[in-house]
């Protein structure tokens, strides 16, 4: 996505809105050895204590800015590889071996971030400033209820994260792009859409067709931005009805997105186990083929494709979403202005 240097709203959106939870990587990406991840306009270092407890700091030593990720994890702190400066998980410098007693010791000098694991992923609270307690991570019921079973699919795509949301906010592409797939061969080529408000966001849906193709999509804000949609399975998918996808997308850079899709099904007992077996044995590969159809189109789009669009009725969902995101970005800028110290005249 093109970053317009003089548009602060665009800059806020390109880096990802602040004070929200974001999924940043699958759980297994992080072990005891520190890992550096570029996300949300920053580099983070993540590591675990031997107990598995997870920590995240900005990947920047407060001394000279060396990456902490090149250092040594020591339980709840990390020792920078450059000069041995030790930074605790809360951002406090606990030791400066080269200059004991210096002012840096005891200072909260590094940005620290709250992280939480759920559903196979690590979520990070992208706070504007360090906070003692983040708001709760609130996930949709498909990921929290025992009535559902799910698998995470994590991918990284070339393109801004907003292109990924645009794609999901555009159900009609299922009828065309995914015509050749195991699950989206049905339904009319034309449709009228409407937007329906919900407590958490909105649903963009076809009028007069449900449970046939990719017929609706939902965008929600629970302190985490997530999307929900349902796709009917063919008969070979067995009992259990449509399968649900929960999506959430995080910027890596302006032109690379971290793409999280949880594939969910409402099943129990032997039906649940059979779906899980079939998913591992064959359905995952079929879902992958469908997802690749999306990735290839999105990656082939020019970074400024969304600056030269001629939209029609099927696009009112993404128009609605983009407007909402711009409003959230403006509100964030107003909060930052209000919090900033008054500039000298």
């Amino acid at each position, binding site marked *: 996505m093109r970053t317009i240097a003089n548009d602060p709203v665009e800059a806020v959106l390109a880096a990802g809105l602040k004070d929200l939870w974001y999924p940043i990587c699958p759980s297994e990406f992080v072990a005891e050895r520190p890992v550096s991840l570029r996300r949300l306009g920053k580099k983070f270092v993540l590591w675990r204590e031997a107990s598995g407890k997870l920590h995240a700091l900005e990947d920047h030593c407060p001394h000279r800015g060396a990456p902490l990720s090149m250092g040594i994890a020591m339980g709840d702190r990390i020792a920078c590889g450059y000069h041995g400066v030790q930074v605790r998980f809360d951002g406090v410098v606990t030791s400066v071996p080269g200059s004991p007693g210096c002012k840096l010791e005891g200072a909260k000098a590094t940005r620290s971030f709250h992280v939480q694991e759920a559903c196979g992923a690590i979520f990070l609270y992208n706070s504007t400033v360090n906070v003692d307690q983040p708001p709760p991570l609130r996930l949709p019921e498909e990921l929290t209820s025992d009535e559902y079973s799910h698998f995470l699919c994590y991918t990284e795509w070339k393109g801004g994260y907003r292109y990924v949301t645009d794609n999901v906010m555009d159900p009609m592409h299922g009828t065309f792009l995914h015509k050749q797939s195991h699950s989206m061969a049905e339904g009319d080529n034309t449709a009228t859409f409407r937007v329906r408000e919900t407590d958490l966001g909105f649903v963009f849906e076809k009028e007069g067709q449900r449970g046939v193709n990719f017929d609706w999509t939902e965008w929600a804000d629970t302190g985490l931005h997530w999307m929900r949609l349902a796709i009917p399975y063919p*008969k070979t998918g067995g009992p259990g009805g449509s399968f649900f996808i929960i999506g959430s997308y995080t910027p890596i850079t302006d032109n690379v997105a971290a793409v999280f899709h949880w594939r969910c099904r409402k099943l129990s007992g032997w039906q*649940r186990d059979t779906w899980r077996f079939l998913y*591992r044995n064959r359905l995952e590969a079929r879902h992958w083929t469908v997802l690749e159809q999306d990735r290839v189109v999105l990656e082939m789009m020019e970074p400024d494709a969304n600056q030269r669009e001629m939209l029609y009725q099927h696009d009112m969902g993404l128009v609605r979403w983009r407007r909402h995101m711009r409003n959230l970005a403006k509100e964030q800028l107003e909060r930052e202005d209000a919090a900033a110290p008054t500039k000298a005249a």
Partner: protein
Amino acid sequence: MSELRQEVYLNPHQARRRPPTPYEDLLGDSIERAFAAGIHDLEGLVAHLNRTGPGCLQNEGVWTEALYQEEMTRLAA
């Protein structure tokens, strides 16, 4: 392009821990054919497997509802 490709994470198999065995592939085929035929109950599914295979790994090849459930629990874990 291929060099660039390696910078990003694209792993088509994230749910399974190893490639499937021929037995698992046959089992998947058979279950899908049963579902396609509209068999959605456990009794019918077990009868279908006993008719078309593959055989159960225990009990001299004969599937029972309990053995099917046990096997699916193992394969779903």
